[in-house]
């Protein structure tokens, strides 16, 4: 018994040890270092700011004196809402259509998987080409259809978040539909059939029986999408760089600008910590209700 116990400990050491050493080196170590930086005034642009400790100054500056930062948080939240809710809504409808059509399912699923597997940089560049004012194909046809404003679609500060959300919707909706389809397919058929036998209409049965059954999947994919969307950097960076003005400056882009354009490292660290805390609090609230690895 003693030998078996020892062998088990040895097994855990060689299998999990390297993983946690590595994750500590790449994640935990840098994270702790960044926590430290967030309490200092380190800046590469000012020679006298060599990393002196200054307590919570960076945090109070971000939360009470920096309206650009608070604005960028709001823009991230709006962008998340504008992109994720249509993705889920269309995803549910498409999943329901595909569910009863196995042939369409088989033909369409490689296509549906494609957009999320493409480099986001390429997605951003393709849409930038198509939305260009001078020669973009989408803006051209929209203008032909009687929307001359489409020519300046990437430089319209009022609609830019909607435009960017549409690109995100293009990239993610098919995948969300696939996930929801998987959730839909794993539901038991009996309750739905019983409801239909009892004389419920298709729509009624869908709303009362199918939707509640799919709720878990909807929440899981919704959370994953919301977190990713709030972190969005690549596509927006490529498409607008945060502009026009700072109309599409999401929080991740603002953090990048403070760190790598203004070289205000201590302050940027504080911003990153705040963004992370926000994401962490929201996702923990949901995650605590999810049973991880329940397939076993």
């Amino acid at each position: 018994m003693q030998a078996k116990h020892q062998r088990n400990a040895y097994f855990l050491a060689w299998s999990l040890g390297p993983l946690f050493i590595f994750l500590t080196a790449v994640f935990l170590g840098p994270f702790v270092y960044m926590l430290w930086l967030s309490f200092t005034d380190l800046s590469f642009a000012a020679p006298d700011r060599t990393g002196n400790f200054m307590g919570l100054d960076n945090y109070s500056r971000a939360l009470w004196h920096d309206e650009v930062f608070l604005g960028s948080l709001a823009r991230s939240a709006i962008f998340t809402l504008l992109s994720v809710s249509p993705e889920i809504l269309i995803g549910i409808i498409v999943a329901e259509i595909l569910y009863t059509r196995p042939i369409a399912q088989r033909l369409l699923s490689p296509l549906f998987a494609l957009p999320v597997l493409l480099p986001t940089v390429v997605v951003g560049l393709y849409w930038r080409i198509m939305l260009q004012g001078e020669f973009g194909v989408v803006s051209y046809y929209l203008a032909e259809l009687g929307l001359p404003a489409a020519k300046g679609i990437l430089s319209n500060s009022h609609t830019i978040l909607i435009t960017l959300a549409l690109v995100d919707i293009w990239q993610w909706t098919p995948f969300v539909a696939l996930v929801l389809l998987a959730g839909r397919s794993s539901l038991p058929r009996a309750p739905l059939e019983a409801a239909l036998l009892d004389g419920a209409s298709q729509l009624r049965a869908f709303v009362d029986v199918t939707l509640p059954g799919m709720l878990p999947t909807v929440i899981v994919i919704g959370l994953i999408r919301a977190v990713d969307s709030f972190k969005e950097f690549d596509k927006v960076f490529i498409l607008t760089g945060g502009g026009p003005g700072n109309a599409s400056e999401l929080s991740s882009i603002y953090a990048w600008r403070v760190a790598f354009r203004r070289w205000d490292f201590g302050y940027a660290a504080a911003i990153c910590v705040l963004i992370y805390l926000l994401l962490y609090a929201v996702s923990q609230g949901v995650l605590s209700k999810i049973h991880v690895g329940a397939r076993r």
Partner: protein
Amino acid sequence: MKLRRILLATSLSFACFVLVCVIIVPILWGLLISLKTRVDALSTPPRWIFTPTLANYQAAFVEGPYAQPLLNSLVIAATSSVLAMLLGTPAAYAFSRSRFKGRRAAFLSILTVRLAPATIIALPLFRIFTKLQLIDSYAAIILVHTGVSLPIAVWIMKGFIDEVPLEVDEASLLDGDSRFGAMMKQVLPICIHGLLVTAAFCFINSWNEFFLALMLTGYESRPFTVAVPALVTPHGTYWGQVTAISTVALCPGLLFAVFARRYLVREVTGGAVWR
């Protein structure tokens, strides 16, 4: 009643058709631009029919320096996915087979890493690598991409190992094998396809990654994700070359979509199930 049904079926097929077009057109348009001359690419109204040319590919890869970033991407993605598999597979095996204190906490901490924004490590790592003079080296970006891929590798691999019956290990252990032996000789050969899918997913992940590469690589080691956006300048852009490189760059994703898509859903959601 019958008419209504036919109408419904037609409109649904039409909706599917529109959906397919919406997905395909941007990718197709990128491909078309890469095969156009500059005049064709910039013409209004947009030209759908034209004489194709490979001039852009030649300009980007033969005359221009853009084969190197693709090669860099290949080196970084291949090395980091192999490293992630080497470190991640034993861990996945342990998570799948062992009951130990803190198992759930350990697994959740791996999940938390997946949720963390990239800015959170990019900032300190930039400073650390600058001090170590590792900025613009393959080592730096490979190390970081391995770290990012690792949680995903453990997560997906655990799913595959879970599907191997416990009896397989037990028989092997009774034969006198060590845990390591049981894993290498019995369990992994059964889920070899799982190993390949997981490695492919790590590869795609690193191949597509932009933000960390932007921060931590320089001219020598930059992957295509960093090199291509740099081609877009306010003074004029060779869209032909941009799309030519992009077209080559989307091949791994295309291959994955065709051959391994059925694993995609569980890879991203990680089999997280509502309690």
